[in-house]
């Protein structure tokens, strides 16, 4: 693809607020006429990225190009983009007509031309005859239509939308989604759409950009993102999924939940730890029979409208979520079957915690701003820079913060079928990853201790 086909190029962009890194080395290319959605949980930096493209903020590092021209330091009023804000941001002292005409009047267009364009824009958003209305008298949905009309009337190369439907009720949101998609087709310009709603992203987009903690996790079509999530964060964030630890025994052979399965993935090496994703609608459920790969007991069954959502616990303690048109009663024995191409294998981002550390003396090592006791390491001098490894399951979490050698807050929780994988942000500002069977909540403050025997020091 030629570079000139990109309407927006974001190259190596980072943004810091003080010492906090909000965006970290973002590279994003938007094609002409593409509908790109930036998707992520709140606080992942998606709105900041949009504001950098609009020009309300400037990046700490990197460059932004719009229509082949570098605009990194260009103020917003000189950029070929227009924005639709989450809270509409209509001008309360102007009526509908003057709100929409605001940009055109600044460009000093002829009065008749302005009138024609405003009428056209109002027609586009289905608000004909609303010209003289006060914006305060409009409903949320109508205000957002006016906001969209006010942006598109300027014929921007790119329309930026910052969670435009977040303040609307569900029914209205669904209707507006369809209208936005229709509008995108008619206008033929690029849309960059920010949302935290994965369903909205799947419905609307040509391309989805999944973000977390200031980094892009995955870029792809909705089908790619849903079917081939690149890591456990994306798998967990998009749709429902069963996430499990597994081992790649050899090519096309994987073991998880205590059972070996055929799969279609290869190239991971032999006996490599991997993450497994299975969508709940991809698991077949039936009366126990020889065809069953796993057997288990139904622990709950909930009617969800089109399908039932059941939780199945296998004999060796793994939990699976299964969606099916048929239901089985609670406590009923069932068999499960998973087809090879429905097993998604992902490389593990890490298999244990690794920290830079410093030897204090032969039985003490300092990392995460704390001194820990460790097994005797006679060959390493005091003061030497080393690395330490701590496996996920040897990190011990405590309710009482004072009992921990160090404190932190639970930031992210993944359920892995038989245990939870937690990401803990320590007060030293570094993450530590923990496997535990105890139930913790997002945002819990905890104390952390590590058993001396489980700290592995590597010179």
């Amino acid at each position, binding site marked *: 693809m030629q570079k000139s086909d990109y309407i927006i190029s974001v190259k190596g962009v980072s943004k810091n607020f003080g010492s906090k890194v909000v965006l970290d080395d973002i590279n994003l290319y938007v094609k002409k006429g593409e509908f790109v959605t930036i998707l992520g949980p709140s606080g992942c930096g998606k709105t900041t990225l949009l504001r950098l493209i609009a020009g309300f903020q400037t990046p700490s590092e990197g460059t932004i190009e719009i229509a082949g021209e570098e605009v990194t330091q260009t103020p*917003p009023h000189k950029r070929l983009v227009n*924005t639709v804000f989450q809270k509409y941001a209509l001008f309360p002292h102007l009526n509908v007509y003057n709100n929409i005409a605001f940009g055109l009047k600044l460009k000093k267009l002829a009065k008749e031309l302005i009138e024609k364009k405003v009428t056209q824009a109002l027609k586009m958003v289905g608000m004909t005859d609303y010209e003289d209305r006060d914006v305060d008298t409009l409903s949320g949905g109508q205000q957002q239509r006016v906001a969209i009309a006010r942006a598109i009337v300027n014929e921007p190369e790119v329309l930026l939308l910052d969670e435009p439907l977040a303040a609307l009720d569900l029914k209205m949101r669904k209707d507006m989604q369809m209208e936005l998609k229709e509008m995108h087709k008619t206008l033929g310009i690029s849309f960059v759409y920010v949302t935290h709603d994965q369903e909205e992203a799947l419905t609307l987009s040509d391309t989805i950009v999944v973000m977390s903690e200031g980094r892009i996790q995955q870029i792809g079509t909705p089908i790619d993102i849903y079917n081939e999530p690149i890591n456990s964060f994306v798998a967990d964030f998009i749709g429902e999924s069963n996430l499990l630890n597994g081992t790649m025994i050899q090519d096309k052979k994987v073991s998880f939940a205590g059972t070996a399965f055929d799969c279609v993935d290869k190239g991971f090496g032999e006996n490599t730890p991997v993450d497994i994703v299975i969508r709940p609608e991809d698991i077949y459920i039936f009366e126990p029979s020889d065809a069953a790969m796993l057997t288990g007991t139904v622990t709950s069954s909930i009617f969800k409208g089109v399908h039932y959502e059941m939780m199945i616990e296998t004999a060796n303690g793994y939990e699976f979520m299964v969606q099916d048109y048929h239901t089985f009663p609670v406590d009923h024995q069932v068999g499960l079957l998973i087809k090879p191409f429905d097993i998604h294998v992902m490389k593990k981002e890490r298999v244990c915690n690794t920290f830079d550390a410093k030897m204090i003396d032969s039985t003490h090592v300092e990392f995460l701003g704390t001194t820990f006791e460790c097994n005797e390491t006679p060959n390493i001098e005091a003061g030497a820079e080393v690395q330490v490894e701590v496996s996920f399951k040897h990190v011990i979490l405590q309710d009482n913060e004072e009992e921990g050698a160090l404190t932190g807050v639970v930031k992210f929780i993944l359920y892995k079928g038989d245990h939870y994988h937690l990401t803990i942000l320590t007060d030293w500002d570094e993450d530590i990853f923990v496997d535990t069977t105890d139930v913790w909540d997002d945002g819990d403050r905890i104390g952390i201790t590590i058993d001396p025997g489980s700290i592995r020091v590597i010179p």
Partner: protein
Amino acid sequence: MMQKILSRGYLWLLLMLLYAPILIIIVFSFTEAKVLGNWTGFSTKLYTSLLSGGVKNSLVNAIGNTFLIAFIAASVSTLLGSIAAIGIFNLKIRTRNAINFVNNIPMLNPDIITGISLFLLFISLGISQGYVTVILAHITFCTPYVVLSVLPRLRQMNSNIYEAALDLGATPIQALYKVIFPEIKSGMLSGFILAFTLSIDDFAVTIFTIGNEGLETLSTFIYADARKGGLTPELRPLSAIIFIVVLILLLVINKRAQNAHKTKS
């Protein structure tokens, strides 16, 4: 029943105490007697003599000066105060609180202290006292009040509308007067009226900054007049008129505040 009469009575007594001096001035503005307190029959002669210029030239001058100074001081402090409020509003929370605190001090500071400090400042800077120093002094004590009446309007404003204006092609200056000013207009107007009345009313600061070149405002004129022995009789109708004007202004401000409240809810 008894209780009701007592509480009503208390209220009327209080109102009478508050308004008696003003009522006396208004009542005695309709008689010709030179000495306040003598009733020599109803007459509107003082009004006609006040309005037809039958009074001393210096009183007319003082009135003119007072209103001109008030108008200039109120206009300048409205502009300065509004821009300052926008700046303060966009500060980080900690700096904002600090600046707000600093903004409040001049309002709590006794006028007499403000007057003396300004007097010393102008002397040490070698600025000759007169019109300019009075106006500067009035701007100094009016501006914080404007800041205080504009800030709440900014807080009510949707924080995205400034950015929306930029996004639609407005330069920062255009966004300021096309979008921000219309939004805070009512706060600016309240600030202006407040500054205007404060300036007309002021004596303590004015007396220290007016110099001795013969410039008089209404307050310094009345002060001098009273010291010379007895008030000029025309001051009575003048006080009555000023009271009525201020009353009307107050009613207008209240009415506006009520309307603003109504449209909000």
